[in-house]
């Protein structure tokens, strides 16, 4: 299609180049650089503070949620009436591919990373994460990947082969142009970032727990983040490998999937789902963790069956790697493989059930407070169970021959993804908002947000089970009037608008509560875990003195002992902090340029970007940076201010 390099891209590259030289040389005018440096944006671009990075993830994820949501609305509008010609053919395929990809990779993952960044180090009583530099790099790579992929809307030719990107429709022959390249490179870049994020959390949780915080005293959210990070660690490489193969095939004429040259398209499906199934647990496990913490907090009770919860989480993570082929029952793997994967898949219902009942029995005998965070958690239980049990129905191959690629599957995964992940994210956001920003989100608007979204959700997706059973395949841009699907589809579309209304209420809520910014205090929810023992928002160094952890629900334990604060495990002293750095951002620019170059089939630019990446790595390796210390009097001042 587009041979050579379009002008617009060239302009962008030149701007970037100027920008870079400006940074490197200090500009033609030293003042310029200084002005740069003193700008508040510079602060955010160079930050290595995990709480700030969490907020960045939140902003990025919310932004893409709106984009992905608008894409969903357009899909639903197209399906409002039969034979609609609002968005058909390739355009519709682009919409649904971008919707799915955006929602999974640029909404669910970053929003969970936002929560993990904010909460995990605080929950384990750490001053920082293990790799602040990589953490920052991970965020910027996620953002670069997301932006790169969405640029496809601007330059035309978005990915159109579904979020699963099956070959051969994703090969050059059947999807000429640059669409799929955006998908491949966007995901590759953000995937590198995600892997780094995962490693960062793993090492943080293993090495940096406060004294006394044994593994079996970690809050559930930390545990689920830990297991989810392990899934990232082992789940993303198959995707990376698969994306490389597609990239080599599209850009360099390799033949992995081309039947005429001896290739086999099913290989991609395996690679994708070896990643894809763990991926869905990556996005559900942290949500489970949020639920566990929120439910236990607002029931005023210790989590019921904590140990079995931990082992259930680990088991889900492990089994998650053994079941991927349940997405491929109709591919023709034969009855033996189908049966094995079916039984393995069903097995996952057992540990998940353990979790569900433990939540129920955490509330049992408790004193339940229906804050907005708790409402999301409470709404989550029936919704997720509904999605889970349809999952088990899908796990039966002969029945799946009927459900597969129909709206029944669409209903299943929105029940788990929205009813599980998105509800979990909202619960977590309402819960930790005071810790992030110092004030709560409004409770009244919050309840409206929940109500509209919850009703809209069930309206949209409950119906879709039947749409599927009545024979409507997914990824169809239309249906026929005589199919008898019209009313059902219309109900579904109306529901989507309810969800949109709910989302808008949420945005209003954010703005309103930020305007009034009523200080929430350190411990607004009568919390149980360590993050509530420090001031809101958390100071840069988190804990002035590392806390001595004496029990599960460490802070609650101290409160019950009559202590207002955690017992310190060390004397007050100067605290070492990593310094801010602009290298992650610049390295990301390198990746971005490289991605853009490969998308436009300009190898020179692609390689140029990579050279920039390696150059920054090289510079970083030689840089000697020992961070800085926050001195005692400063800490004392901050702490006093917070406790006043």
């Amino acid at each position, binding site marked *: 299609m587009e041979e050579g390099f379009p002008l617009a891209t060239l302009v962008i590259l030149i701007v970037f180049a100027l920008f870079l030289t400006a940074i490197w040389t200090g500009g033609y005018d030293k003042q310029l650089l200084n002005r740069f440096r003193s700008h508040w944006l510079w602060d955010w671009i160079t930050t290595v503070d995990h709480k700030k990075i969490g907020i960045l993830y939140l902003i990025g994820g919310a932004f893409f949620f709106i984009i992905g949501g608008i894409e969903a609305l357009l899909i639903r509008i197209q399906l409002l009436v039969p034979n609609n010609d609002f968005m*058909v*053919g390739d355009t*519709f395929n682009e919409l649904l591919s971008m919707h799915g990809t955006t929602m999974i990779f640029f909404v669910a993952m970053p929003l969970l990373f936002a929560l993990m960044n904010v909460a995990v180090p605080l929950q384990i009583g750490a001053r920082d994460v293990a790799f602040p530099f990589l953490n920052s790099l991970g965020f910027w790579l996620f953002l670069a990947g997301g932006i790169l992929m969405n640029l496809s809307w601007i330059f035309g030719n978005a990915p159109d*082969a579904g979020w699963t990107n*099956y070959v051969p*429709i994703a090969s050059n022959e059947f999807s000429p142009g640059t669409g799929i390249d955006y998908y491949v490179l966007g995901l590759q870049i953000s995937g590198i970032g995600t892997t780094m994020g995962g490693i960062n959390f793993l090492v943080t949780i293993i090495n940096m727990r406060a004294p006394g915080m044994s593994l079996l005293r970690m809050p559930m959210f930390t545990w689920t983040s830990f297991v989810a990070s392990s899934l990232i660690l082992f789940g993303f490489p198959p995707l990376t490998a698969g994306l490389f193969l597609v990239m080599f095939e599209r850009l360099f004429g390799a033949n992995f999937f081309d*039947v005429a040259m001896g290739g086999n*398209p*099913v290989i991609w499906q395996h690679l994708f789902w070896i990643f894809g199934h763990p991926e869905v647990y990556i996005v559900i496990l942290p949500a489970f963790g949020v639920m566990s913490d929120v439910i236990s907090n607002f029931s*005023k*009770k*210790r989590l*019921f069956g904590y140990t079995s919860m931990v082992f259930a989480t680990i088991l889900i993570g492990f089994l998650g790697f053994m079941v991927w082929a349940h997405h491929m029952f*109709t*591919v*023709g793997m034969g009855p033996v493989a*189908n*049966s094995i994967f079916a039984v393995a898949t*069903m097995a996952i*219902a*057992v540990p998940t*059930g*353990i979790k569900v009942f*433990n939540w129920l*029995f955490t*509330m*049992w*005998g*408790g*004193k*339940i*407070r*229906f804050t907005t965070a708790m409402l999301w958690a409470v709404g989550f*239980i*029936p919704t997720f*169970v509904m999605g889970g049990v349809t999952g*088990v*129905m899908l796990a*039966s*191959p*002969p*029945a799946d*021959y*009927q459900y*597969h*690629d*129909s709206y029944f599957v669409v209903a299943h995964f929105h029940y788990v993804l929205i009813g599980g992940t998105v509800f979990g994210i909202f619960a977590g956001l309402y819960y930790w908002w005071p810790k992030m920003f110092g004030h709560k989100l409004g409770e009244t608007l919050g309840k409206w947000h929940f109500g509209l979204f919850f009703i809209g959700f069930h309206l949209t997706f409950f119906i879709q089970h039947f749409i599927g*059973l*009545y*024979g409507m*395949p997914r*990824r169809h*841009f*239309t249906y*026929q009037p005589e*199919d*008898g699907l019209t*009313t*059902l589809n219309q*109900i579904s579309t109306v529901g989507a608008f309810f969800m949109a209304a709910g989302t808008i209420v949420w945005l209003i809520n954010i703005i309103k509560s930020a305007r009034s910014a009523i200080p929430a205090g350190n411990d607004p929810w009568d919390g149980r875990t360590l993050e509530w023992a420090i001031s809101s928002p958390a100071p840069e160094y988190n804990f002035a003195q590392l806390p001595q952890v004496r029990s599960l629900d460490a802070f609650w334990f101290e409160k019950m002992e009559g202590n207002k604060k955690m017992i310190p495990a060390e004397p007050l002293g100067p605290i070492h902090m990593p310094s801010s750095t602009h290298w992650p951002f610049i390295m990301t620019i390198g990746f971005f340029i490289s991605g853009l170059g490969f998308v436009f089939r300009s190898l020179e630019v692609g390689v140029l970007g990579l050279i920039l990446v390696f150059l920054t790595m090289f510079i970083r390796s030689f840089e000697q940076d020992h961070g800085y210390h926050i001195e005692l009097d400063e800490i004392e001042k901050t702490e006093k201010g917070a406790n006043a």
Partner: protein
Amino acid sequence: MSRGKHLGRLLFVFSMIALLMAGCEEPAKSVLDPQGSTGEEQLTLIKISIYIMAFVFAVVMVIFIYVLIRYRQKPGDDSIPEQVEGSTKLELLWTVIPIILLAILAVPTVATTFSLAEKPSEEEEALTVKVTAHQYWWEFEYEDYGFKTAQELHIPKDKKVYLKLTSRDVIHSFWVPALGGKTDLNPGQTNTMTIDAKKVGTYEGRCAELCGAGHALMNFEVVVDEEQKFDQWVAQRQEPSSQPQTAAQERGEEVFSQNCMSCHAIDGAELERKGNKAPNLTGFGERDKIAGVLENNDENLEKWLKHPDKVKPGSYMPSFDFLNEKDMKSLKAYLQSLE
């Protein structure tokens, strides 16, 4: 289990209500109303699983609602509830019961998985049809009878039909909800599947694997006839009457040979070359649908011939809007005369 059954019934009632809401439009293709044994076996499994799931869901809901009502914090009550660690007995209970429920589901699942994968036996004298999917149309080759057709799969009632499925380009999936679940058609690989139909009628089929711009309109029909009528149809296909009768049809044949023949074939016609890039048009006049989507009438035929891409996005068929009115008319007459 009686509660389970009850709830299962409730779920069906729910589905009926949903149907009502849909204005009593009756889908011509529903998984819940199978017309063949494959679909029936699958529905049985679906039902078993729905009953189990309804039971599970009900148990969760009962506890859930009870807890929410019973254990809300009453205003002014600041007491601290007992911090229970857990209960081995309970936890064992909700580990073991799901395992049992899943075993109940797993056994028929595995059995059906294997039974559906079986090839029909010799005695069953199954009809074998080779199905080849193309972007965005279906080719059905009756190997035993030596002819090919497109878009409409004709099968006799009460007879096993053994399908050999493959694709010429990308991955597609063969789905006739009323007759049975789907099987993918992969390039370079042949999958198989057996279906049958117990009732005469026409059943809607869909492509169920995203295959490109025209995916949503890659529809086809399965026409089920009494055996006798099917045999007649076969005979007719083997001796098609493709000779033009009127002057218009004759002119139409000429237009066809100039414009269409490099892609389309018509059996029995005295044309020199037979294209196989596009559907075989033998018997076109008798088909229900044009391109699998438009009702077969003159007006629609013209619409299709003039702008195939508007009817079916991504269709490889070029537009013939350059034909003058007379040629267009003759061509239509010729096509409609094909039996």
